[in-house]
């Protein structure tokens, strides 16, 4: 059961990290505001759901987020690009700041009541006397559908081939007559739209509040680093891995002492480290994993390049 939950969470993380990875490998920008677009997706979907219901929001909210993302690329990032990568990074960093403030300004500082639609509220099946909600299944369906669509788009269509070409040889693609800045804008818009979609289906499963971007943002970065910068496959594996680690560790109540006892080391009794349970350690585990990966395999799980 934890495995299914972990996979659901992991797939959601992948929707976020795939957009981030695409943007990074294409433009070399680490988009710090990526999780902000996730938050915007959730809030837009909430707003639309109060007017016309959940289903139109599922389609419209990511599109609006994508349009906002494209506009940010066109009028902000493209300008910052002239001053180098650090300026771009700082631009997205400042953007994350502003988005959080604007969201607080419009929707207030407390969580909004963004609910799962009634037709998806219920139990899909029962396994080991634990209910598996329909909505989790729906989330999996959307995520996998997105994944397949993204894969097909990148490898089977003309625009996908141009994008792949622009990833490695932007000058050559430009010389062949393609508008590379427009492709960049499309990729950025597409990546942010994916984040928006993740927000639409993740916002009501978890919580929709101004802090949600900061909460998920650093985890997504961990995913991208662990998977290897610029590697979609690595991001997929790392998303599932971290999703499962997060869910499993919350469910485990053994302490650090027990873990060390398993490998035959007994810790001194009574120290604070020894008393910690794995559940308490849960928020730290992804970061520990990331630091470990960076020490022993700096490229990440499937990374092609180092820096």
């Amino acid at each position, binding site marked *: 059961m934890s495995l299914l939950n972990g996979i659901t969470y992991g797939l959601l993380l992948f929707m976020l990290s795939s957009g981030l990875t695409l943007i990074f490998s294409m433009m*070399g920008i*680490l988009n710090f505001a990526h999780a902000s677009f996730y938050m915007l997706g959730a809030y837009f979907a909430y707003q639309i759901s109060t007017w016309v219901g959940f289903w139109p929001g599922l389609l419209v909210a990511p599109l609006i987020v994508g349009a906002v993302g494209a506009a940010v690329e066109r009028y*902000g990032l493209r*300008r*910052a690009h002239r*001053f*180098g*990568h*650090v*300026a771009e*990074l*700082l*631009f997205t*960093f*400042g*953007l994350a*700041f*502003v988005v959080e*403030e*604007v969201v*607080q*300004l*419009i929707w*207030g500082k407390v969580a909004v009541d963004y609910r799962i639609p009634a037709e998806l509220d219920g139990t899909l099946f029962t396994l080991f006397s634990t209910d598996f909600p329909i909505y989790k299944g729906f989330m999996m369906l959307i995520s996998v559908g997105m994944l397949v669509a993204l894969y097909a788009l990148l490898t089977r269509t003309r625009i996908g081939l141009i994008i792949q070409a622009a990833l490695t040889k932007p000058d050559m693609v430009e010389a062949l007559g393609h508008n590379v800045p427009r492709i960049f804008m499309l990729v950025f818009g597409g990546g942010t739209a994916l984040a928006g979609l993740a927000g639409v289906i993740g916002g009501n499963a978890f919580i929709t509040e101004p802090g949600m971007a*900061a909460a998920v943002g*650093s985890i997504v*970065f*961990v995913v*991208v*680093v662990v998977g290897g*910068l610029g590697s979609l496959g690595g991001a997929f594996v790392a998303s599932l891995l971290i999703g499962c680690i997060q869910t499993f560790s919350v469910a485990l109540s053994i302490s650090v002492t027990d873990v060390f006892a398993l490998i035959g080391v007994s810790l001194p009794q009574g120290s*604070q480290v020894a008393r*910690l349970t794995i559940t*308490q*350690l849960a*928020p*730290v585990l992804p*970061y*520990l994993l*990331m*630091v470990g990966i*960076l*020490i022993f395999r*700096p490229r990440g799980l499937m990374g092609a390049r*180092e*820096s």
Partner: protein
Amino acid sequence: MNSAIFPRGRLLLWGGCLAAAIALPLLFKSGFVVSLLCQMGIMVVFALSYNMLLGQTGLLSFGHAVYYGLGAFVTMHALNIVGKDGGPLTTALLPLVGGLAGMLAGVLLGYVTTKKAGTTFAMISLGIGELVAASALMFPGFFGGEGGVSGNRVVGKENLLGLTWGPQVEMYGLIVAWAFLATVAMFALTQTPLGRMANAVRDNPERAEFVGYDTQRVRFLMVILSGLFAGIAGGLSALNYEIITAETLNAHTSGVVLLMTFVGGIGFFYGPIIGAILITVMQIVIGGLTHAWLLYFGLFFLFMVLMAPGGIASVIAVQRNLWLAGLLGRMLPHYLAVALPVLVLLAGLVGLVELSYALLAGEGVGAGDTATRVMTMEFHLNTPGPWLAALGTTALGLLLTRWIGSRAGVAWNAALATLHGDKA
């Protein structure tokens, strides 16, 4: 001391700054100003230590709060251990303990983070920052849990020249002394071979490596030294506020120091000083006036990134060059001409933001009211009047800025062309 490192002009400037720092609390006796000045002093050290990484070594760190926070916690614990046995002199030296703690943290964490430069370093520093911030809540014994750790900086009986550090003014004196020492030390570092190599590693790591320097070692040393000064800043903040919470370690603190340093200007030694002073004033003065201050701050930051990526220091440097070339006089009328529409535009934007804030966040006369009061003027939010006025002002400001701005831009480019033409 009339050497190349400390020529007369520089000595005069530094002495002037020190004199101004000492004179300010004598001019403004209010407690508000003195605590503002204290915070500035701490932030100046913190921002300068950050710029040792970003500006001098080219390392963009998102986890600098770790060194600052650990320095603060260790100083606080040292203060509590010293307790009754210590005197004012021990208290005055405590920031050094914080500095050593920051340095130790730099040795431990820097070894991991400095393996790579560039984007990878940024992400590792972010991860380490989050790791330490999350761990802080797991060890309430050391980090004090939600409530933090507090202490009392007035310890012992005997006085050092009659100083106990109790009153805020005396604390300010201590901060100025430490800040000045740290600033001189950090400036001196930029003149050492290590400081120069750090610049080389920033600009061209491959070449630096080819000449025979280990780039990782240079980065590692810079992180350690930067940790030392960040720890001193943290130690000063522990003494100043007498309470430190785990929040000091989180990403927000790291973000603020990054913003300060960048806004001030990373390419100049004095840039972070300007940034730290300006942002602290903005934070406290504008923060006291409006709840939307973080929004203004964020927008200001975005504006700086897009328009003046060199920060305020680079803007000053360009004006200085213009002045030296005798061109500043030609530009001044244009500056004044642009200032007017920009002010109109700002007024309109601020009006819009404040009206929205009042309507949506329910601030003003009373929560949930449909009226708000700005500088004794009362606005009714449910009538279109104030909204139209704000929108109109914004539109007018936008039009005027574009119109006058384009003419000033022409003059600006001409002046820059003359300036660079002179140089060539």
